């Protein structure tokens, strides 16, 4: 299971199916995070986004983050999916789901995972602006 908890996807993320994968009889809490494509960033109107990944390293780094979350927090199961390719406004770009016996660990682990994914996993966002320009974000 640990080897398939993180994945990159070229197609729409199915949150309901992913949530069902987290179910266990001992699970009392499930926290999910979805990152949606916003229509603006830093004051510029955004039409759509493209995500590019270094796929093999993104996969191994993503799995490493999920393994860290399993070590640090009393959670039962976890999944993370990140989109690659072109996305429209409002589409989920990333989904994180965590199940646990109790909610504190589920919240903390979900927050940890998305923070680490955003800072460590080699995926880049290319914003296409309303003025016709586009640009890679390298914060």
């Amino acid at each position, binding site marked *: 299971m640990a080897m398939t908890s993180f994945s990159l996807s070229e197609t729409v993320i199915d949150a309901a199916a992913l949530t069902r994968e987290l179910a266990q009889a001992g699970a009392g809490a499930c926290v999910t995070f979805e*990152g949606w494509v916003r229509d603006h960033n830093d004051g510029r109107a955004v039409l759509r986004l493209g*995500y*590019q*990944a*270094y796929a*093999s*390293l*993104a996969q*191994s*780094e993503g799995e490493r983050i999920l393994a860290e979350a399993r070590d640090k927090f009393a959670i039962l199961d976890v999944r993370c999916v*990140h989109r690659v390719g072109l996305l429209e406004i409002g589409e989920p*770009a*990333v989904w994180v789901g965590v199940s646990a016996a109790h909610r504190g660990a589920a919240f903390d682990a979900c927050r940890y995972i*998305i923070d680490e*994914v*955003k*800072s*460590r*996993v*080699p*995926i*880049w*966002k*290319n914003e296409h602006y309303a003025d016709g320009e586009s640009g*890679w*974000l*390298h*914060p």
Partner: protein
Amino acid sequence: MKCRVLYFAALRDHANTDAESVDTLASDARGLYAQLRARHGFGMDESRLRVAVNGEFAGWNHALRDGDEVAFIPPVSGG
């Protein structure tokens, strides 16, 4: 020796390719980036990048060997 170099995001746009085979005399990743920066005119300083060798993060002093696959990782912006 020859290394395979992978480019992503702004570096890919700048190099105008996603990968290339590079003949290098550089002994480590730092030297290889200096060589490629001179060739392609990359604006991004080494301090903003991370290095990966053969699919794993590595240090700038990582000694390169013939056939290594090297990637210079710009600041990420997933999520």
